[in-house]
């Protein structure tokens, strides 16, 4: 087992008149127990040049089981504020990552719904990503 810590900080002085400052940190553990996770895809990078769906994380190939504690990190390394990458689970679009955006979310490793991404244009875009399980 390993000790993996994921932390977030959200801050704004003017989104609310009193300011916003939220911090949270969690140690990633296996489902239902306090033992640390053991696996990852490793931090990977993929450059896409077509605006068609690409399977970023193939749960069967990557040997990710549906234990329930799996997490995914994805970052769009582009600097474009107009071009984005759709993040999809099955046919459902979770959301869009514009240049510089990132996400960190749980994923249940569904049988038929691999995690896919679809760029908005054919311009080159590079994603950094990692599944932890």
């Amino acid at each position, binding site marked *: 087992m390993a000790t993996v810590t994921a932390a977030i900080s959200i801050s704004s002085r003017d989104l609310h008149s009193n300011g916003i400052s939220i911090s949270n940190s969690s140690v990633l553990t296996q489902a239902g127990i306090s033992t640390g996770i053991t696996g990852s895809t490793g931090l990977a990078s993929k450059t896409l040049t077509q605006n068609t769906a690409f399977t970023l994380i193939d749960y069967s190939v990557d040997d990710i089981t549906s234990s329930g504690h799996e997490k995914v990190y994805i970052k769009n390394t582009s600097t474009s504020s107009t071009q*984005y990458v759709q993040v999809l*689970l099955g046919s459902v679009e979770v959301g869009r990552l514009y240049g510089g955006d990132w996400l960190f979310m749980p994923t249940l490793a569904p049988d038929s719904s691999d995690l896919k991404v679809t760029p908005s244009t054919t311009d080159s875009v590079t994603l950094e990503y990692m599944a932890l399980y």
Partner: protein
Amino acid sequence: MATTTCSFTLNSSDLISTAPLNVATSNVLYKAGLQIGLDQVRMGRNEITSGTNFDLLDATAAAIDKSNWVYIANLETDVTLYVTITIDAEVIGRLYAGDWMFIPWNCDDATHDIEIEASSGTQTIEWMCMHENETLATAAD
């Protein structure tokens, strides 16, 4: 417009024995396709009882293709407890006690709600949605 910055770190010294994991990034939350900061926010703290899948955030037609960023944290400490997050009947994943998530949320349509269900007991969560383009509904009375 407002400036909201979201920072992330992912660290481990032993997940990969030969290479410590040190990921750090941050982004400023903008309106969709623009470099104008998001200017609206909703946040809350709720107790989620088991046995029912609840709407945590309702998708609206006004939010389709707009920028919405959602943070959810499970505040429980019992490691066996979790909440399941669903969007449009697709299970996204589980947040076990202490877990958090941060995602962009595109309201594809008005049924693209973010739903939440507790595995058992009553679980406390905190959430925040930073967004654009919300207009309050006209009062019915």
